[in-house]
């Protein structure tokens, strides 16, 4: 069983939470919900555009969390945002109140984790192909829920092929942690998802989802895309 975590930028379009249900029904195991930030330094063009769109609509971190609190989703909701928002007082309580159980902060590395105060929320750390072994081990020890393996040196965004660095990183991570290792950054197609899942415990798909939403695809259409990812992952599980 491989894990699938599609991503959506909270508040990107009116009624955006309908996508959450679609993801759930399409077989997602978790959902990453981005709280849009003015300066998404780790994100590529697609998620930058999503963030800008959300902010332009008046979306705030609070409004995203309020929206989440109103929907009924039975798979774990993982918030992702930047350190500037995550370190604000009361952030952890707000997540919990919205039913969010996990958190990803891409610009809050191991070294700065002490500043984060989100009791009751599992903080998943990121690991990169450049991370040295000793540090990777530390990430494995301190990460919660899963480890987010960055497949490639770069920003989020669709890519033509899965980077060779992905498999190596996933393999290294599997040696230092029993947590699921999810590969993200650049996984855009069912084929790539399958390839990634062959070396990791699952995949995170962000830009490929958001590209469709920005292009006007509704929940059904995007749900179908997620379902196609799900199918590819199931095949991998079977073949193995």
């Amino acid at each position: 069983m491989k894990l699938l975590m599609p991503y959506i930028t909270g508040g990107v379009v009116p009624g955006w939470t309908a996508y959450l249900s679609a993801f759930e029904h399409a077989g997602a195991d978790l959902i990453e919900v981005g709280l849009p930030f003015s300066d998404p330094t780790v994100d590529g063009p697609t998620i930058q555009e999503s963030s800008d769109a959300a902010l332009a609509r008046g979306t705030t971190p609070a409004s995203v969390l309020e929206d989440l609190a109103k929907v009924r989703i039975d798979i774990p909701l993982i918030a992702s945002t930047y350190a500037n928002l995550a370190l604000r007082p009361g952030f952890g309580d707000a997540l919990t109140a919205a039913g969010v159980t996990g958190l990803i902060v891409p610009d809050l590395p191991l070294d700065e984790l002490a500043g984060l105060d989100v009791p009751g929320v599992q903080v998943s750390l990121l690991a990169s192909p450049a991370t040295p072994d000793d540090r990777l081990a530390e990430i494995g020890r301190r990460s919660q829920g899963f480890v987010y393996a960055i497949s490639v040196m770069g920003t989020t965004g669709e890519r033509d092929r899965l980077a060779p660095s992905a498999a190596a990183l996933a393999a290294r991570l599997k040696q230092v942690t029993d947590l699921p290792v999810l590969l993200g950054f650049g996984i855009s197609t069912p084929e790539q998802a399958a390839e990634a899942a062959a070396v990791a415990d699952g995949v995170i798909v962000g830009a490929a989802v958001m590209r469709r939403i920005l292009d006007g695809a509704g929940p059904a259409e995007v749900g179908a895309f997620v379902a196609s990812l799900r199918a590819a992952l199931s095949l991998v599980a079977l073949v193995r």
Partner: protein
Amino acid sequence: GRYGSYGGRYVPESLIPACEAVAEAFSEAWADPGFRGSLAALLSAYAGRPTPLTPALRLSAELGVTVLLKREDLTHTGSHKINNVLGQALLARRMGRTRLIAETGAGMHGVATATAGALLGLPVKVFMGERDVERQAHNVFRMRLLGAEVVPVTTGSRTLKDATSEAMRHWVTDADEAYYCVGSVIGPHPYPTMVREFQRVIGDEARRQCPAELPAATPDYVVACVGGGSNAAGTFAGFVETSAKLVGVEAEGGSGAANGEIGVLHGFQSLFLQDEHGQIKEAHSIAAGLDYPGVGPEHAYLRDLGRARYVTVSDGEAIAAAVRLARAEGVLPAIESAHAVAWVVRAAGTPELPSGSTVLVTLSGRGDKDITTLIAEADLA
């Protein structure tokens, strides 16, 4: 890597090794007399240091305070940025890096980096907000003539903040080969410390030069403009252990130190202009080099300690001060530097800066890049 609660290294995991490599290399280099000697030689034989300390006699007489100008405008490329860039470019070469990347606002840091790249034979890529590309076309041309590639950044406010974000994004993709030459006392550790150390030559020189001009040997006030705050950090470094009052002058629309709240951006924790939800505000200043919503972490710390004061000046005050200094002393300051002069003009004779005081003002750069703006804004066309 910390100044009180400020500083740190808030970067994606992918950049941690690169930051650590820079930190380690800088520590070694800074302790190496050979490196220091190479840098000192370049600063002197290439960049034109020491820069003079010029008594502003006519302005002083007009204001009733003794004004000394630290003349970073006379360095090669025309601003203090060269001090830092030569240090970092030498470091990049020492680290075996094969290219340089940089962000730039007014373009001065971009020009300085392009210059250092040409000097050392390292290709340079400069990220610059599209809006700044337009309003600082002169510097864009300079960078191109120097052989650098200028990449216009079209995201966000299309100014320095976004150029910095884009440079960091790019660095991730090329961290093994590219050295990211940060232009101010911002960014993840070790940049704020390293850039301040490379810029402290301003303050150290001025400290040594003051006794010849001032009976009291040190000035009562030390004033510098603050965007990210590198010229101020370098200047203050020379005087932080004296009794001089330190004053950082920000643009009204880019007053991270004066009006910001604690936050994290571009790899460091400091004071940033933010809305009530924690979104970073766009800065607005006629001075592209001050058009930044945050401030270097050490400035935030100095503010909290009460060791330095941070004040703001409007676009109009800066323009008037630039023209006034040009006409009183024959020195046309960068519109950034004019902010520091503007505060002196405004405060002189008030309890903030009593008559008879002695004031060191760092002119971080020359105003040639701002001439078109000044001519239009000062209604001299």
